[in-house]
């Protein structure tokens, strides 16, 4: 499995501010994904981030709200912009290892609270 780290692990932010979450993988991967997990709920895919191309967003998520960077094959960032209390969630990155096709491994998550 891949070793995935996320920074920060948690944060408390004020309404209207932005937070950038970092995801670092210990090996090169083609596909990286960003998910949101609202309190007590399941995971919802925000977007797919591939190196060298723009992220692909799922229905209900837009680039202006959740800009994503993927500068290389081991790193990605997700920014939660102009935050409101409704953005309070756990944000998780995951990677797909092409060698073991389709398996996705998750980072530990970033717990965000917006006041």
């Amino acid at each position, binding site marked *: 499995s891949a070793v995935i780290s996320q920074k920060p692990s948690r944060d408390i932010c004020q309404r209207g501010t932005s937070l950038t979450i970092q995801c670092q993988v210990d090996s090169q991967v083609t596909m990286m994904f960003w998910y949101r997990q609202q309190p007590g709920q*399941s995971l919802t895919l925000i977007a797919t981030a591939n190196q060298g191309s723009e992220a692909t967003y799922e229905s209900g998520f837009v680039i202006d709200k959740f800009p994503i960077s993927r500068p290389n094959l081991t790193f990605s960032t997700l920014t939660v912009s102009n935050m409101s209390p409704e953005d309070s969630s756990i944000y998780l990155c995951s990677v797909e290892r092409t060698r073991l096709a*389709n398996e996705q491994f998750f980072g530990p998550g970033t717990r965000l609270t917006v006041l």
Partner: protein
Amino acid sequence: GESVGLHLPTLSVQEGDNSIINCAYSNSASDYFIWYKQESGKGPQFIIDIRSNMDKRQGQRVTVLLNKTVKHLSLQIAATQPGDSAVYFCAGMGQGGKLIFGQGTELSVKP
């Protein structure tokens, strides 16, 4: 549409007993499924996967069964231990290679 759902939100078992967690999927879900375990404060941990050309796959103390006729997936945990207490999610690979998660079942193991 695509959906993956779980039958029960909570499951309580006695330590040492076997646990069975169920999951249903819709007609348009893919032919690849994963079970994840999520402990409090952590990200989902890959447990086991199965493709639709299989009915059963076994791991260490875990077995996944796939019934394509009724579009049903289950995770069996043998000799459940306190360390198995967590929320378990099934996920199906949907259109475009994206994982669609079920709502989760919280497993509690009583000593």
